[in-house]
């Protein structure tokens, strides 16, 4: 059974519904990301799980118990804020010790646990500093230590890295993953950064307009997006309308041509997608299948690769290639859509 389960959750503010009949499950020990653009409901979902707000309807089951009405301070969940939310009037030590003090742990033990945790996040020697005397990355680690030291049943992270510069972000996400695997805690991670979330998660749930469109491992989402929204989100730029012809993967395109698709997904689908880098420009003597002819509209030099926007009878294609020959706008080209790279939606 899942450790955490959201059942039919509807949530929002006043008349503004943000989450509609949301279902969501997380297994013990998993790091699950909620990914989506701003306003998709990912932060609302996280804050609801944390107990910062209550749903209008639906149930939140945690560890077999109904947590829907359990108050925030009784949940034993760690929360890492985008703003870090460190207590500015307390030292690093007191910040990290706060949760343990609330749990009435003896002072000696608090000291031991806090120092151990600060060492784990590489902040030993900083215990007497105040948050304002530290850099963004250090504050982030204090925030992590503060949430982890209470040995939370669940760790919730709300865009924890978005205030850091690019280099530090990569370093910290490895750090978060390391800590998560070291302690084996279950975590939910909210982000709008696709790369970050694919790098760190066991599973990714992509949200759109308050519903989860797909929840799978990063590689499944990357290679087999289930909806057009997700396909666009993970870099599929080209979409085709199709008519299935047989059960062997033969399809008819909108201009009556035929293409072969190897994807074993939904065979009766009428829509498919392909990434720009999976389309080849056919040259003399090259064996190729799934041919589409067209004319280059725009040619863009991208350094390592060239990008072409090609207009064909079945729509405009974006093609990204590292082939040597260069085409100009107006050139006639023949495209080959690699059969095992076309994904049915």
């Amino acid at each position, binding site marked *: 059974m899942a450790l955490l389960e959201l059942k039919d959750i509807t949530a929002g503010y006043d008349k503004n519904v943000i989450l509609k009949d949301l279902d969501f499950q997380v297994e013990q020990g998993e790091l699950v990301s909620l990914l989506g653009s701003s306003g998709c409901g990912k932060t609302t979902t996280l804050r609801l799980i944390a107990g910062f707000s209550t749903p209008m309807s639906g149930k939140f089951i945690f560890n077999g118990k109904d947590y829907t009405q359990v108050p925030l301070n009784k949940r034993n969940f*760690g929360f890492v804020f985008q703003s870090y939310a460190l*207590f*500015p009037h307390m030292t690093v030590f007191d910040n990290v010790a706060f949760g343990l003090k609330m749990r009435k742990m003896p002072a000696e033990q608090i000291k031991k646990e806090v120092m151990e945790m600060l060492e784990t996040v590489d902040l030993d020697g900083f215990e007497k500093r105040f948050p304002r005397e530290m850099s963004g990355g250090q504050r982030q680690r204090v925030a992590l230590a503060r949430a982890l030291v209470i040995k939370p049943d669940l760790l919730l992270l709300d865009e924890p890295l978005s205030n850091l510069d690019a280099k530090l972000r990569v370093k910290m996400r490895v750090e978060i993953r390391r800590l998560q695997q070291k302690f084996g805690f279950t975590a939910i991670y909210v982000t709008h950064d696709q790369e970050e979330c694919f790098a760190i998660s066991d599973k990714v749930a992509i949200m759109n307009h308050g519903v989860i469109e797909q929840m799978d491992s990063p590689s499944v989402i990357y290679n087999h997006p289930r909806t057009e929204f997700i396909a666009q989100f993970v870099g599929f730029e080209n979409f085709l309308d199709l008519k299935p012809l047989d059960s062997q993967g033969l399809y008819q395109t909108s201009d009556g041509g035929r293409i072969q698709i190897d994807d074993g997904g939904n065979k009766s689908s009428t829509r498919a997608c392909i990434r720009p880098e999976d389309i080849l420009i056919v040259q003399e003597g090259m064996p190729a299948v799934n041919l589409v002819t067209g004319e280059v509209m725009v040619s863009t030099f991208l350094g390592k690769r060239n990008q072409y926007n090609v207009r064909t009878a079945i729509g405009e294609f974006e093609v990204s290639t590292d082939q040597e020959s260069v085409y100009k706008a107006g050139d006639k080209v023949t495209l080959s859509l690699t059969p095992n790279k076309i994904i049915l939606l």
Partner: protein
Amino acid sequence: MLEKKTKIYWLFILPGCLFLTFFMLIPLFSLIFKTFMDEGGAFSLGNYFALLESTYFKQVFWRSIRLSLISTAVCAVLGFPTAYYISKYAKNKGMLMALAVFPMFTSPVIRSFSWMVILGKKGIVNDLLVQSGIVAKPISLLYNEFSMVVGFIQLFLPLMILSLIGIMDNISDDLNLAAGSLGASRMEVFRQVILPLSIPGLVTGSVLVFTGCLTAYTTPQLLGGTDTRVLATLIYQQAMSLGDWTQASAVAVVMIVITILVSHVINRISRKLNPTI
């Protein structure tokens, strides 16, 4: 280039400075100087020794301090929850803030007269007390320390509330939530996070209220009696009724010194409670 220009800019503050120098600093300091002279013009602390020896002055002095401290404490106790509610929970914040500062829009004279109506022998409070049988006949609620404190509180509570709201608005809600998620109850969130972080506002508010109470003249004059004089009314009495400007100035100097001292002490205490200020 910029540095050359800034040299000219100080001319802009010159008119203000001159005005203050001639019409405030010079008269003020000449008064202060006179308090340190004897009748012959030589340096002397005689005026201050005279104050120290006067039982009447000492009575007025301690009454002023006591009433100001009581009013400050009551303003803090009343103002804190009000400010917290307005800052964190209120939906119609602008409206409530306008209501909170509304007393400041009327003159202290009018307000004091209103209190006379309310607290007088035939006022609403006495009517209620007599009718409900709590007291047999009307008690005197006016022209004593009680009515003065009531007047002070109404006069200065807005300052406390405004100072606190200013600071509380800057306390991020995430801090409350963070403390809660770490296991703190509402009471503990308040004690460990809200209260210490509100101290700068409490300090500003307390200094404003205390100095306001100590230097207020209209309210104690109208709501106090002849046997409840405070420093401000004493100064008036000395200067205007008795014509003793030197003695009045000496009292004024004492008042300024207390104000500075108390602000300093309140600041020190707050620094102890919240080292990040």
